């Protein structure tokens, strides 16, 4: 029964999301695209978190993807869709090379190094003036799909669907068992035959490709990159807060968290232009203190309690 309800709800959400641009204006549509962007980043961050590794490097791979997409279009004259793919490939390649060194670290050390890596790439982009346009960044001569907001929305929507599908595949396959074992206890995982380094590198690459492609789509949508905007710390912190709010270790949590926080923060921005991040912070603190499993975890607990009372 509940399976039917779930399917119906999901179908309704999908229809709503697809039809969204047709019954709203340009402003809600641009918010929706930004929510989708953060949603993808939140889900991809959670995918790595399932190994127990906390990354603060989302903005780094997002920015690398943005720059790769814009520069490959400017210098090589490639079609925009291809440059988005290149954004993903380059982010993934850098993640692979870095991962071999960095994925030997754990916990706080890994987190700090990923943060530093993101910062290093921002500084490189700022200083390679002749190639990247330096602090001013680069502008694209034209936008993807001639700036058609319907199509850019659908492109980001497609990317979100792809990310959710990958996340669900990982949750339903043997990857899930490997990652859960690694997160619980690496020595136990190794003693059960799990090649932990292989899984860590694979997940790090996959999530970085997703983040890089998302950066590519974003850059192609708005037609520019700058070190400050493309590597903005927002792209690291907001997805992290969204995943924590919604609930970690699953697809649903980051999706719900991104919808809620994304919409709430846009609304707050209108009323308290600079103060909205304060409220944002308060929400995150309350969630971490009182609902460590997020909204989805809380809902599951209520459901279980309800089932017991019946």
């Amino acid at each position: 029964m509940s399976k039917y309800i779930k399917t119906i709800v999901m179908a309704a959400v999908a229809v709503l999301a697809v039809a969204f641009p047709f019954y709203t204006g340009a402003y809600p549509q641009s918010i929706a695209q930004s929510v989708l962007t953060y949603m993808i980043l939140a889900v991809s961050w959670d995918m790595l978190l399932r190994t127990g590794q906390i990354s603060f490097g989302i903005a780094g791979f997002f920015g690398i993807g943005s720059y790769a997409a814009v520069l490959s279009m400017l210098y090589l004259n490639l079609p925009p869709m291809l440059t988005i793919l290149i954004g993903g490939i380059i982010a993934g390649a850098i993640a692979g090379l870095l991962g071999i060194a960095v994925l030997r670290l754990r916990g706080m050390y890994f987190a700090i190094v990923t943060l530093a890596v993101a910062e290093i790439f921002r500084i490189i982009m700022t200083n390679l003036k002749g190639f990247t346009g330096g602090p001013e960044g680069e502008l694209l001569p034209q936008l993807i799909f001639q700036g058609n907001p319907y199509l850019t929305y659908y492109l980001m929507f497609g990317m979100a669907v792809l990310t959710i599908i990958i996340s669900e595949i990982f949750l339903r396959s043997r990857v899930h068992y490997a990652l859960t074992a690694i997160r619980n206890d690496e020595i136990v995982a190794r003693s059960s035959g799990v090649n932990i380094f292989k899984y860590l590198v694979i997940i790090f690459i996959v999530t970085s490709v997703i983040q890089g492609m998302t950066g590519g789509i974003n850059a192609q949508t708005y037609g520019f990159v700058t070190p400050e905007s493309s590597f903005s710390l927002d792209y690291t912190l907001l997805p992290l807060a969204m995943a924590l709010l919604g609930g970690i270790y699953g697809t649903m949590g980051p999706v719900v968290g991104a919808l809620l926080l994304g919409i709430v923060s846009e609304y707050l921005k209108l009323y308290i232009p600079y103060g909205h991040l304060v409220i944002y912070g308060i929400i995150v603190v309350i969630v971490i203190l009182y609902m460590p499993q997020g909204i989805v975890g809380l809902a599951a607990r209520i459901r279980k309690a309800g089932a017991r009372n019946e």
Partner: protein
Amino acid sequence: MSKLVLQSLTKRFGGLVAVNGVDLEMTEGEILGIIGPNGAGKTTLINLISGIHVPTSGNVFFDGKDISTFPAHERSKMGIARTFQLIHPLENLTALQNVMIGFMFAQGMNQKDAGVAAQKTCESLKLEHVERDVGQLTILETKKMEIAKTLACGPKVLFLDEVMAGLNSDETKDLIETVKRIAQEHNLAIGVVEHVMGVIKMLTARVIVLDAGEIIAQGPYNEVSQKPEVIKAYLGGEA
């Protein structure tokens, strides 16, 4: 031929010699007791064999092959399995899923086959409640699950690191029978670390006594337990 051979195996941690020049052979179907006072190097010895630690010097041979530098997951695939002194059930997974991991990763099964195989293994150990989250198992069930997890790796050599700890006498008897049975059924070489000497007496044909990382005595339990150097290691002072 011996399944597992250790040759002057040594592990140093800084200035501390945890395992010092250990020579040992284990054959299939044999249950070996590994005893010694706290800090004697029993767990370190298992860590060296299972690949958690790399030896400072000396060698580990498995099936005649030198595996001293093989990573732990490779050794697990070859058939070296172990439990942990501090048990680590994998949370957020059911008991059955805990057992499935070895079948999937050490034996390379797909998810479906691993589920079927794990179910069988749990049944053979009379482990019920396999659909429960690991946090809801009794101590005996948890211990059996830990053994099931090692069997899931398709072991040829198995080390049980204090699996009886925390059990009452009925539960201990139950688990002793279980260990004896799996040793026969799977033709395993089993190494048992245990502080309860009654368990060692009932289970093992041969024991080694470790003290300060060295084997100070070996032989049948009844002989070894009478040796003055063993009594001295356990009680200290002049025996």
